[in-house]
């Protein structure tokens, strides 16, 4: 597996962990410092799309 594929796989795994599944009422707000993980989740999604494009079109990016 290439580094780009590993990066994409990790991003995809984190996206599913942070942004999917049943939300339980009363769930604690998860944060890193002052950054809400909700936003981290969103950034993972955006980075994920970017990574898909990069790894799908490597020659066009070089």
């Amino acid at each position: 597996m290439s580094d780009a594929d590993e990066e994409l796989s990790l991003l995809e795994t984190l996206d599913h962990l942070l942004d999917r599944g049943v939300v339980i009422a009363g769930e604690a707000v998860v944060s890193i410092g002052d950054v809400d993980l909700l936003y981290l989740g969103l950034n993972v999604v955006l980075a994920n799309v970017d990574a898909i494009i990069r790894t799908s079109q490597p020659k066009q990016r070089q």
Partner: protein
Amino acid sequence: MKLVVIGAHRERNDVEPLAEAIAVSDLWLSGMAVEESQPLGDRDLLLRVAKTRAALLDRATFVAIRYGFTAHGESEAMAKCAAHIDRWRRVLNDFRDCVEMTLKVAAAAPRARPDRHDFESGAAYIRALHEATRATDVAPEFRKAVDDTLAPLAVKYRWSNRDTSSLEFAALVKRQNVDAIDDAGAALKRDFPSVPFLLSGPWPLEVFADDHE
């Protein structure tokens, strides 16, 4: 200690010894014990939970619980999960031999994300963001190919607009069809080399865990 909850399972043996099992009615939650002071945003913890989640799915299908839910024992877990138990039981019984697969595809013509500074009210901004997201679409021929090749392999499937730059096809598939889905994805890659997409899975019950009656 607190337990970072990973999923809801039908059998205790689906959980142990990979994770700690917490009884909720006749179902079981999987949890990972961490110190009370442990920040949930810790990178190593996230990776440990992700790894355990994958191992649990290898064992048996479960309902994924969004990261961030913690419990200190059965009574607290039961109090917080009571409203979900009946639905989880139905989902776990009906889809025990299924997993989810997702295909994310970049939009053919991404919409510009609205700038919140251009709006006088938060409501107007949210409406504009929703409209921009809803208007995003993929190339029709690619969407048709997915509907023609992947969808027939699924028990259920759904297209959803995730943001202004991508859409997602989520499919609930029987475990024995995962290889066929991967093969169909490889064929799509050959047929549409210029369309950036990512087919991934198997995943636990995430998209289809909430709406099953």
